[in-house]
């Protein structure tokens, strides 16, 4: 499960979020899809939940939603906006 970097400050207005990474002194703007994903990166939602939420909210195919999500995750990883991958195993022993 992915989680947003807790040190990143953010505000949302009209469905769009502005992020500030204090450590880097950088700000980022997220569109509506990005903002929805960002809000769901709270550690309580799986990637499947996020894909499902995007599909419902923006009426797109799950494949398209997955692609957009992966693309955003990649960019967020590059900018250290995600908490160091706290990936929980998909299968349990």
């Amino acid at each position: 499960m992915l989680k947003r970097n807790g040190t990143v400050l953010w505000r949302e207005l009209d469905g769009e979020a502005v992020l500030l990474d204090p450590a880097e002194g950088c700000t980022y703007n997220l569109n509506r899809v990005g903002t929805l994903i960002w809000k769901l990166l709270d550690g309580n939602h799986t990637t499947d939940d996020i894909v499902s939420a995007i599909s419902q909210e923006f009426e797109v195919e799950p494949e398209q939603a997955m692609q957009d999500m992966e693309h955003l995750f990649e960019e967020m990883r590059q900018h250290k906006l995600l908490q160091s991958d706290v990936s929980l195993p998909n299968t349990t022993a």
Partner: protein
Amino acid sequence: MSKAQENNIITSLYIEALRAGHPFSFRVVSNSMIPTLSIGDHVYIEPAKAKEIRVGEIAAFETPLGLVIHRIVTTQQTETSVRLLQMADVDLQASWIEEHAIVGRVISACHQNRIIHFQHPVAQRCGKITARLRYQLYLRKANKPLRVISRHCSRWVVRSGYLWIRCRCSTKVITDETTPIYQQ
């Protein structure tokens, strides 16, 4: 989201980050602190609480218009809190800032190809003297015949203080195309 709304959000995020203990550089967007600071200068602000700000320092505080940096000319300790009297360098207007509005202090500034170090002991002393003199002039400003003289004296005090600090507490920045070099 309009550009103005976005700027407001970004400002509030930076203020929140300062309050959380992160220092930042900001670009000056007004000439209220001339000659010390001008539009386009970069100031480095470190987080500080009202009780830590000394007379003569340039404090950063939150206002409805955003983040403002002005010099503190006197402080007033009440039973429960402290408040600071702020003044721009450009005129003899002053207003009180409540404790909760303070977010930090200006440590240094990049001004006209020089880095001015406001925490240098000479800059601190000079800032303090300047602030105290200007506070006295501000008090005398209420007296009409003295108003014009007070303003002129204030400008002279600010100018002298600025030149002294610039001369004693700044380092020249020499830049080539690739690497900045700082020279004493």
